[in-house]
Structure formats: structure tokens, C-alpha cells
């Protein structure tokens, strides 16, 4: 926490600028101190220490920046290379002029300091000092002579009398103080010009010692606050030969003018001498100050280089970071504004761009969601439709299929199968008619079309009404087709049933009802007039009435057949072995001379759910039809084959009836199974219609064709219900029905 606070305090430009300002002021003070400023002179060392410390601090700060930059550079952090380049550039820009300036400043400084000192000036000062000294010396000599006279005068006096003379002597001389002392420095008598002075200025112990050795003392002496003085101390002989010699101590003031001049010369000389002596240290000091200034400027410049490079690069690295984020799909990133310059403009533009992209993305996602909802809605609608709907794209690839379509066609593809029609047909061969119809329509027509398609698949015979239409739209939907189809098998069946029900009802109503009175009338005529009429007439009547009754009977039968045909099927379904039923029926025709029947049955036939009675009727009808059609054909042959076919999910039992008769007339081939369509002279014309009805009742299908080598061929297929889970031995196969190529 403390470290964080410290970091906050030491980061940013303010503390460094403050440091810089402080350093600058302290350097100014130091420079002033070097030039002998009294105020800063006392603080010189402190200032020096502070400056060095601050520079070390600055150095540490820069070191920290440098270390961080190097580490960022090594980590290849965004913007670090640019920062390094900028820092180097700034440092070079700053260091070069500062170094040049430093070099020349140093040169000027040294030359400037050297130029202060001139041998002639020094000599002149020395001469002036010597002059002053000489002048003072002559004065001193004079005073010394004067003192000598005083000493001689005092030499005759005892201490007591001398005391009386001292004052007088001082007043006659120019001395400020005149003192008589003994050799130990004790005052015998003293006189001073200043009455306030109680104690005279005493000679130092060194002077006293010199005098004890018998040497007089006369010297110029500066006395504090009182200017230059001349001190003369001489031995005064004692008139008493046993007594100790005494000392006369005289202090003379130097005339004020001379004092001032000498002091001035002395001060100038001292100062010059001191300066000359300090020349080298002064140079060092100035160099030191200048170097500190240089270092300060340099380090501040380096720091400023770091700071400004960072400031300059920050928005750029922000931009790099932002671009990376945008590339990664994060559009919510907003960069901080660096300012109002071009970089600021760039960052503002970037922010604007990401904002717009984000908005566009949001809108796209909303519209996509809406489209998804729409699609889901449409799918829901489509799935609820009872009609099958499929869409095909330009390349006839199955694009969409709804659940009703899957149910009708017996497919399991999912909502978006992306399957071409050819692949669909390949996978589901039973859809071939549908695929062919659709392909033909797609190839030849561009408008709305409608077609009926009959399929025979695992669900049995199916009649589909297909309506196709190209999708009118732009872009992706262009060239697509939508095909809607309905399974109308049940509907057609119902329509047929209804139609034949109506026929039967009308026959019953319009034909059958008058038949009984006709028959009764004919029988009454016969009964009443047969016995009364002559035999020839009776024979005619008998034949006529007989014909009427017979034909009425025949008509009744025909009406009954129609009625039976139209009657809604009441199938009594049971699990039957079609092969066995076929065998039983064909056995009835064994021995019939008109026809030779050959059965080709498969070993393994699955049981089917069927009404056995109706199946027998179907088989009889087919055999009869062959017999009737092949009348007049010698050695009429019928080949019946039965086997189980399994194609993918579709299993059925196929029976094929082939004869060597005349075959079907070509014009009738399309409507063979309609009632009353026949080429034969005999028959009700309902035989094949009933066959078709029974097949359709069992959800099977049949078709008729002519064989290549003549003769008619009828193929019918009956679907096998899926009972694979049951025991195959009991249900699926019939062990007894494995006769092959049995000739009946």
C-alpha cells in the first residue's frame, strides 16, 4: 500500500517537474555559493549533497523506466519498439546539443577563470602592499626612535616616578596607550587616550618571551574593530642595578587615511591571493556545478524522453490493442482519448468505428434472430400442414422438407437434408416416379404445374397430386422450386367407391326394380298361353319367355355384380400365405384341357395380411380372364410366378401372370382396369376392374403390359407388413411352400 502510494507519487510528470524545479533552484544557489555568496555559501555542502542525492533519485527513476522498457521490449509488448525508438531519438536529440554546450561552457569557464589572474595585477598588488608596508615601516621606525627616547628617559626613573611620567609621556607622544610592565606582564603604570578603557591592550606571551630574551618588539598589528596599530615593546633598564628590567609597551594608531589605504590594499591582496589559490578548486567547483546542471538537464531530458515517448505511444499501443480486440470480435472496447490532436482524432475515429461495427453486429444479430424466428414459424406452419412440402434449389437439390412430406413419402431426412434428387432416388428407388415427374417439370416448365404421381412403396400404392411452382424472389431463393403434394390415394378410393355406389344404387333403382315385373310377366305369359297355343306358336313363346327370364336373370346377376363391386370393402384380414392360396386356386384348374398352367414360386415367401376370399376371387378372375382372352388359341399356356421382392425399406410379394394369348389391344392398355373395358365377346367387363379393386383394397398395385414375344402380362404387388420382430420360422417363411417350377 505504501509502495503503491509511493509509486503514485513518483509516477507522472508532476513530481519529476517539481524535482526538476527544486534541483534547478538548488543548482542556482550552489552556483551563487561558488561565487562567494554569503547566504548560499553556508548551505553549499548541503546543496551539493541534495543535488547529488536528487540526481541519484532521478537516475534511479530513469533506471526503473529503462528496466521496465527493456522488459516490455523483450516481451514484445505492443508499442514497446516504437517507445524504444522514440526514446533513443529523443535522447540523442537532447544529449547532442547539451554535450556540445557543456564542452564549450567548460572551455569558456576555464579560460574565464584563468583570465581573472594576471601576473601584472598580482605584481601590482604585491607592490602596493609592499609600498604600504614600506610606508608603515618608516612610520614604525620613527615611532621606534621616539620610543627609544622614552625608554632612555624612563631608564633613569624608578617604578614610582615612572608612574608619574607615563601619562605625561603619552600625552606628548601620539601613542593611544603607553604602559610600563614588568617582565611577567604585570602593569606598573598605564596611560590610555580613551578614558573608558580600564585595561590596556596587553602584549601576548610570545612578545613577552621575545623581550625576555632581550629583543625589542616593534610590529604592525591589526587590532579587531580598531584598525591597524603599531605595537612597540622595549626593555626599559632598571636604575636599580639589582632590579629587573621593565618593559615599555606603546600602541600607536596608524593615521586613518594610511590605515584605510593599507587595509584596502591588504584586503584586495588577500582576496586576490585567496582567489588565485582557489583557482583550481574554483574550477573544480564550477565544473562540478556545471556538470550537475548538465546531468540534471540530461537526466531530465532522458526522463522527459521516456515520459513523452510513453505519452506519444500510449494511444498507438491502445490502438494496436483495440485493433487486436476488434479482430478477436470484441467490439465493445473503447479507447481513452489522448487529446485533441491527430492521434486523438484517430482514436476518436477508431471508437466511432467500433461503435458502428458493434451496432451493425447487434442489428445483424437481431435481424438474424428475426429471420430465425420467421423460419421457425414457417417450419412450424409447414410441419402442421397435412400436405407435403419440399423445396428444391437451382441444382435440383432437396432444400427443405416438412414432416408431412416425410410421412407421405416414408422418409427420414430431417428438415434440411441437402440431398440432390438423383441421390434421393438412389437412396429411395420407390420414389422414382415422383423424381422423374419433378425432373421433367423442372426441365420443361417454368410456371406452376400440377401432376398426379403414383408410387408403390412400403406404404403400398399411393396417388399423389403434386403442384410445383418456382419461388419468385431474389438472391438465394431465385431458381428455387416449391413442390406441394397431397396423398390422395384414400380420396380417389373414396371417390371411386362413391361413384360405383351411385352406379349400383341407380342400377338397383333403375334396372333391377323393373326386372322382377318383367320376369314375372314373362312367366305369366308362358304359364297362361303355353298350353293354349298351338305347338308351333307355343314353341316360339316358350323360347321367347325362356330367353326373357334367362336374360332378366343374367341382368340381375350383372346388377348384383355391380352392387358387389361398389360395395365398400369389408375385408376380413388374416395372416395368410399367398403361395398356398395360389396353389389352392390353381389346383382347381388342374386337368382343364383348355389351359396349361405353370407355377414358378419362390422358396421363401412372407405372409401377408389379406382377405383370403377376396384373394381367391382375384386369382379366379385372372385365370378366367386368360381363359376368355385365349379362346381359340391352341395350347394356351399360363405362367404364374410369385416371389418376394425387397428394395430398401419396401417389401412386397410380386405375382406375375404371363400367357401366350393375343395380348392386350394397344388402345385399351391405359384403361384396362376400368369397368366395362374389354376386348372379349364374353364376360361382364368387370373382371379386371374387380382385380384392381381387390389389389387396391390390399394397398397393392398392378399394371398390365404385353410381353415382348406376344401374350399378355399382368403384374401385381401386395405389400408385406413389417413383422420382422416375430419368429421368422412361423411367420416369415412358409416351409411347406417351397415347390419350384411346378407344372399344373
Amino acid at each position, binding site marked *: 500500500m505504501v509502495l503503491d502510494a509511493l509509486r503514485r507519487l513518483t509516477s507522472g510528470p508532476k513530481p519529476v517537474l517539481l524535482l526538476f524545479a527544486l534541483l534547478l533552484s538548488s543548482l542556482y544557489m550552489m552556483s551563487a555559493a561558488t561565487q562567494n555568496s554569503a547566504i548560499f*555559501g553556508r548551505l553549499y*555542502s548541503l546543496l551539493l549533497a541534495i543535488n547529488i542525492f536528487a540526481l541519484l533519485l532521478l537516475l534511479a527513476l530513469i533506471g526503473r523506466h529503462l528496466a521496465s522498457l527493456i522488459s516490455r521490449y523483450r516481451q514484445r509488448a505492443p508499442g514497446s519498439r516504437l517507445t524504444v525508438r522514440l526514446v533513443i531519438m529523443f535522447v540523442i536529440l537532447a544529449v547532442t546539443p547539451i554535450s556540445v554546450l557543456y564542452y564549450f561552457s567548460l572551455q569558456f569557464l576555464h579560460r574565464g577563470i584563468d583570465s581573472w589572474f594576471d601576473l601584472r595585477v598580482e605584481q601590482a598588488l604585491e607592490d602596493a602592499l609592499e609600498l604600504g608596508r614600506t610606508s608603515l615601516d618608516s612610520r614604525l621606525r620613527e615611532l621606534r626612535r621616539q620610543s627609544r627616547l622614552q625608554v632612555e628617559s624612563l631608564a633613569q626613573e624608578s617604578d614610582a616616578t615612572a608612574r608619574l611620567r607615563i601619562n605625561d609621556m603619552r600625552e606628548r607622544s601620539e601613542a593611544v596607550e603607553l604602559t610600563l610592565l614588568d617582565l611577567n606582564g604585570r602593569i606598573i603604570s598605564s596611560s590610555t587616550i580613551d578614558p573608558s578603557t580600564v585595561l590596556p591592550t596587553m602584549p601576548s606571551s*610570545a612578545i613577552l618571551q621575545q623581550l625576555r630574551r632581550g629583543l625589542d618588539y616593534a610590529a604592525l*598589528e591589526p587590532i*579587531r574593530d580598531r584598525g591597524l596599530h603599531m605595537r612597540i615593546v622595549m626593555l626599559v633598564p632598571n636604575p636599580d642595578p639589582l632590579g629587573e628590567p621593565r618593559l615599555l609597551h606603546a600602541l600607536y594608531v596608524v593615521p586613518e587615511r594610511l590605515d584605510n589605504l593599507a587595509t584596502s590594499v591588504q584586503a584586495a591582496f588577500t582576496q586576490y591571493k*585567496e582567489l588565485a589559490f*582557489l583557482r583550481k578548486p574554483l574550477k573544480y567547483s564550477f565544473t*562540478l556545478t556545471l556538470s550537475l546542471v548538465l546531468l540534471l538537464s540530461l537526466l531530465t531530458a532522458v526522463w522527459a524522453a521516456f515520459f513523452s515517448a510513453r505519452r506519444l505511444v500510449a494511444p498507438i499501443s491502445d490502438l494496436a490493442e483495440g485493433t487486436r480486440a476488434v479482430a478477436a470480435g470484441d467490439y465493445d472496447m473503447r479507447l481513452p482519448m489522448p487529446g485533441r490532436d491527430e492521434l486523438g482524432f484517430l482514436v476518436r475515429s477508431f471508437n466511432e468505428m467500433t461503435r458502428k461495427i458493434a451496432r451493425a453486429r447487434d442489428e445483424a444479430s437481431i435481424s438474424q434472430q428475426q429471420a430465425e424466428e420467421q423460419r421457425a414459424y414457417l417450419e412450424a406452419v409447414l410441419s402442421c400442414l397435412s400436405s407435403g412440402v419440399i423445396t428444391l434449389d437451382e441444382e435440383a437439390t432437396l432444400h427443405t422438407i416438412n414432416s408431412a412430406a416425410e410421412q407421405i413419402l416414408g422418409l427420414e431426412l430431417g428438415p434440411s437434408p441437402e440431398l440432390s434428387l438423383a441421390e434421393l432416388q438412389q437412396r429411395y428407388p420407390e420414389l422414382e416416379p415422383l423424381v422423374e415427374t419433378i425432373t421433367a417439370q423442372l426441365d420443361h416448365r417454368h410456371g406452376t404445374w400440377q401432376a398426379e404421381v403414383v408410387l408403390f412403396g412400403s406404404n403400398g400404392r399411393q396417388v399423389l397430386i403434386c403442384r410445383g411452382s418456382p419461388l419468385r424472389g431474389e438472391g438465394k431463393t431465385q431458381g428455387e422450386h416449391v413442390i406441394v403434394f397431397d396423398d390422395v390415394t384414400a380420396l380417389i378410393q373414396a371417390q371411386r367407391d362413391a361413384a360405383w355406389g351411385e352406379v349400383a344404387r341407380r342400377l338397383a333403382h333403375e334396372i333391377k326394380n323393373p326386372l322382377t315385373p318383367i320376369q314375372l310377366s314373362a312367366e305369366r305369359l308362358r304359364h297362361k298361353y303355353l298350353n293354349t297355343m298351338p305347338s308351333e306358336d307355343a314353341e316360339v313363346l316358350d323360347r321367347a319367355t325362356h330367353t326373357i327370364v334367362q336374360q332378366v336373370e343374367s341382368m340381375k346377376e350383372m346388377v348384383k355384380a355391380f352392387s358387389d363391386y361398389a360395395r365398400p370393402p369389408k375385408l376380413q384380414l388374416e395372416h395368410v400365405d399367398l403361395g398356398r392360396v395360389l396353389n389352392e386356386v390353381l389346383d382347381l384348374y388342374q386337368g382343364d384341357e383348355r389351359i396349361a398352367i405353370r407355377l414358378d414360386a419362390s422358396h421363401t415367401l412372407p405372409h401377408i395380411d389379406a382377405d383370403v376370399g377376396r384373394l381367391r376371387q382375384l386369382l379366379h378372375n385372372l385365370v378366367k380372364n386368360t381363359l376368355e382372352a385365349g379362346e381359340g388359341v391352341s395350347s394356351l399356356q399360363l405362367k404364374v410366378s410369385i416371389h418376394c421382392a425387397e428394395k430398401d425399406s419396401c417389401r412386397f410379394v410380386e405375382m406375375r401372370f404371363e400367357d401366350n394369348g393375343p395380348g392386350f389391344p394397344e388402345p385399351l392398355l391405359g384403361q384396362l382396369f376400368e369397368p366395362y373395358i374389354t376386348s372379349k365377346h364374353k364376360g361382364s367387363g368387370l373382371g379386371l376392374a374387380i382385380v384392381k379393386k381387390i389389389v387396391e383394397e390390399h394397398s397393392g398395385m398392378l399394371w398390365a403390359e404385353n410381353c415382348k414375344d406376344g401374350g399378355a402380362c399382368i403384374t401385381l404387388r401386395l405389400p408385406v407388413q413389417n413383422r420382422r420382430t416375430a419368429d421368422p420360422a412361423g411367420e416369415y417363411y412358409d416351409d411347406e411352400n417351397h415347390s419350384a417350377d411346378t407344372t399344373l
Partner: protein
Amino acid sequence: MGFTTLALKKPAVTRRRALGHPGCRRLLLLFGLLLALPLQAAEFFITGVHIRPQANVYLLDANVDYRFTEEALEALDNGVPLTLQMNIEIQRKRKWWLDAEVASLQQRYRLQFHPLSHQYLLQNINSGAFYAFQTLSAALDAMGSLHNFPLLDAQLIQEGENYEVLLQAELDIEALPSPLRPLAYITPAWRLNSDWYTWSLMP
């Protein structure tokens, strides 16, 4: 009041203390040490120390032998005033804790050459007394001899305690002209001082 005195001399390193100086002084000393300069052998010697009580005042007698280096003498002859100071500290010894400072005082002298009169001027900065000497040795002798120097009021000393009087003489670099100071701090010839002289005082 009976008392015992015992003179002891301790190595300089054990008792280096800046007494009564501004805080910057310690900082500068630290800087001096940081520069890892070879320690200058002591140029000043303290001898003849004697402390005695007289009329409730302890008086100090001591002699300091000031031996200047060539550099210092050259500076003096060239008019650079030298300031010397005698650091005196009286401490009460404590067994388990740092010694307590009872008193600390400084005696400062200023020595200067007067070219006109060829005199060496000595000024006692504390008292303001001013002396002129024809020779340097006379000036140094005068400066170095402390006689009857009033050290301490006897009332400040408690009986039964151990006291130490510490003495040191040194050249005050801070009083030198500012251009000379950086050089003086880093030049051994200018780092003139004596070892700390310790006098045990047991009243």
C-alpha cells in the same frame, strides 16, 4: 567531594560523533564515507588533559598539538582562513542503554594570515578574543593550550554515576570557502582531526 580521574584513550572509530552540528554535517560525513576514502591518520593530538573541580566548576586543562598538512598551510599562507574547533562532550554512562548526554560544547578558533603585517591572527570565535602572532607556531601554541577552561557546573554531576568527558579537535571544512569544500571532503589532506580523547569522571 572526593573524586577520581582516570585517563583513557580509545580508538577513534569507537567514538566518532558529530556534536552540535547541523544535520547536514552527518549527511556529508556519510557521503564522505560513501566515497570510500582512505581514512586520514589523525593530524591533531590531544595531550595533557586534566579536569579538576574548583569552586563548583570543573576546569579543563588540555593541549592540542595542531599539525597541519602542506595543503592546509599553503591555503593559510594564501589568505584562506582556517576554522578549528574543539568538540567537548560530557556523557553519563548507562549500563543497559546509550549514554546520556549531560552537556556538549564547542570551542572554535579562526586562524588567518595577515600579509601586510606578516602576522597570524587568531580569533576565539566563542569569546571574540583576538590575538596576533608573528609566527605560526606561536599562534598554534596559543590556540592549542586550554588552561582553566570552565567545563561544567558541578551541580550537573551526580554522585555515584559514571561520567565521560570526550574531546576532539578538528578542522571545520564547512567554514572553508565554498569552492574548496567539495575538494576538502574528498581529499584526505583536508580531513584534519584528532582521535576522540576520553576522560573518565567519577565524582
